[in-house]
């Protein structure tokens, strides 16, 4: 897909907007995960705002829509922000995250919020759901695609590999995974906690086609998803190398920000950074 400079500028602005939404939501909620949602802002922007995804915010349950399955449910603030900004539900509702009576549960609950197809939280469950959807679509000769957003930490779950084996056996080429390879999990860096590498070779051994990209390069993300659609008879794993906490200096590469929300002071600092693109442009406030 050819992206004009103007479109790219808009997409980068949207990614910054989604990151701001995430910080504001987490501040309001006083709990939640910071690093993952910030790190995946560019991937969600590419998915929901480049036109690559075949969904209709006004008809969220449209039968022939592409499916987006979030497996690492704890990064849902970024999914919620993307859905709201794409028009699936009012942006004001984002502030209800994790509050009593909200449709924006701390981890996603399927069926109550437009655009959220699966409940997730216990890791790797989304992998099997995505594979099941892709298999059913093949049974019925449906043209829609299944996208699954997965974390790298959840590659430690056995279920991940059960699902990978099944998808490989059945050559589910309507299935594309986007793995957030940010190298952190709650207890530290993945390679210290329980090494995952070589991930590419592992998936290839399971019969997948694997692409590795910079998960903050929006044109590269779009290209990879386009490329995935052209792959025949293999499920596709796009390993998105991301920086946890991307966009907020004091959160970047810090495992301690995996499962923590910012306080007022930290949130203001983060928002200032995001609005000035880490000091590269002058702040409106200054």
């Amino acid at each position, binding site marked *: 897909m050819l992206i004009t400079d103007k479109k790219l500028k808009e997409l980068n602005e949207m990614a910054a907007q989604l990151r701001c939404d995430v910080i504001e939501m987490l501040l309001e909620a006083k709990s939640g995960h910071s690093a993952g949602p910030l790190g995946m802002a560019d991937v969600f922007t590419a998915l929901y705002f480049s036109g690559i995804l075949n969904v209709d915010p006004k008809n969220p349950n449209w*039968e022939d829509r592409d*499916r987006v*399955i979030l497996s690492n449910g704890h990064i849902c603030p970024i999914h919620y922000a993307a859905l709201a900004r794409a028009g699936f539900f009012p942006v004001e509702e984002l502030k209800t995250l994790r509050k009593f009576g909200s449709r924006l549960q701390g981890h996603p*609950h*399927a*069926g109550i919020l437009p655009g959220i*197809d*699966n*409940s*997730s*939280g*216990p890791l790797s*469950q989304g*992998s*099997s*759901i*995505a*594979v*099941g*959807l*892709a*298999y*059913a*679509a093949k*049974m*019925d000769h*449906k043209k829609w695609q299944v996208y699954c957003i997965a974390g790298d930490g959840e590659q430690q779950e*056995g*279920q991940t590999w*059960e*699902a990978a*084996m*099944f998808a490989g056996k059945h050559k589910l080429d309507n299935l594309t995974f986007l793995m957030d390879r940010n190298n952190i999990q709650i207890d530290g860096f993945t390679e210290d906690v329980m090494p995952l590498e070589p991930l590419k070779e592992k998936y290839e051994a399971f019969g997948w086609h694997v692409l590795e990209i910079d998960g903050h390069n929006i044109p590269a993300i779009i290209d990879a998803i386009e490329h995935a659609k052209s792959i025949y008879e293999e499920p596709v794993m796009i390993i998105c190398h991301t920086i946890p906490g991307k966009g907020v200096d004091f959160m970047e590469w810090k495992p301690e920000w995996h499962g923590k929300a910012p306080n007022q002071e930290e949130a203001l600092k983060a928002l200032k950074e995001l609005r000035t693109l880490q000091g590269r442009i002058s702040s409106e406030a200054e």
Partner: protein
Amino acid sequence: MINKNLKLNPKIFDPDVEQKPTRDGYGEGLVLAGQKDSRVVALCADISDSTRSAMFQKAFPDRFVETGIAEQNMMGLAAGMAMAGKIPFVSTYAVFCPGRNWDQLRVSVCYSNANVKITGAHAGVSVGPDGATHQGLEDIAITRCIPNLVVIAPCDAIETKKATLAAAEYVGPVYLRFAREKTPIMTTEDTPFEIGKALVFREGKDVAIIGCGPLLHNALLAAEELAKEGIEAMVINNHTIKPMDKKTIIEAAKKCGAIVTVEDHQVMGGMGSAVAEVLAENFPVPIEFIGMKDKFGESGDPNELIEAFGMGKNAIKEAAKKVIQRKK
């Protein structure tokens, strides 16, 4: 007195009453469900002959999914397929499903209210020689505590067939429990079956024996023998553990004033516990529980094990007499 309205098997007390495993009823029901609705699909984790899902595979090879020995993935696949409009039935042994994939059942299926039908075969100590690892004795406890999930333990192959068809028509997650061995056919094609509607198999006034699964036959035999001793026992087929037919259970407690529950399952958290919850809240009466008493099973002949673990006809009779003594 046997309830004539239910059109039970007239040969129910004959020594040569026809015997058939409940899982056979599942296989037959699944094929019928598949004929009635093209959305029905079946998934099995490497034991399709044993769970009888092979009968469906033979009838509808394109709608059968072999998942390999991967029960967690099987549950998730089913959730995904349900989200695409299918009506998936997942089958393996109860010790693995819901035993091994309970988290996937809880979140991928029940929290999302996905239209998945979960079946646990080889439930109960009556599995026999395979031993404790393969005798599912906790499945009722761990399924009935999950919101949105219907839990059914049919009493014979014919009722299992009807329960399978009812599960296919019901929209939402359902758990069905089967046994391994051949067990007496108690019902007929004309016996009614409705999810959540218990059946009074035998009328009585002194004690109500509330059972589920094939052990109901022992309950009926016990009731016949008790009648010879002047004790009239009501026998209830409480096939739907959730949502439970509270009305029938409370009425039985009011009429008889004493209850014996019978199940091939751990007493803790099982059908009897569910009955106790209903009665404790609404009409407390003495209850005796027949089932596994916080023990693992072991290898042996099924009937030998049922007797050894206190679930035989005589144990039920003893429990009935004991609970009648406890009436104030």
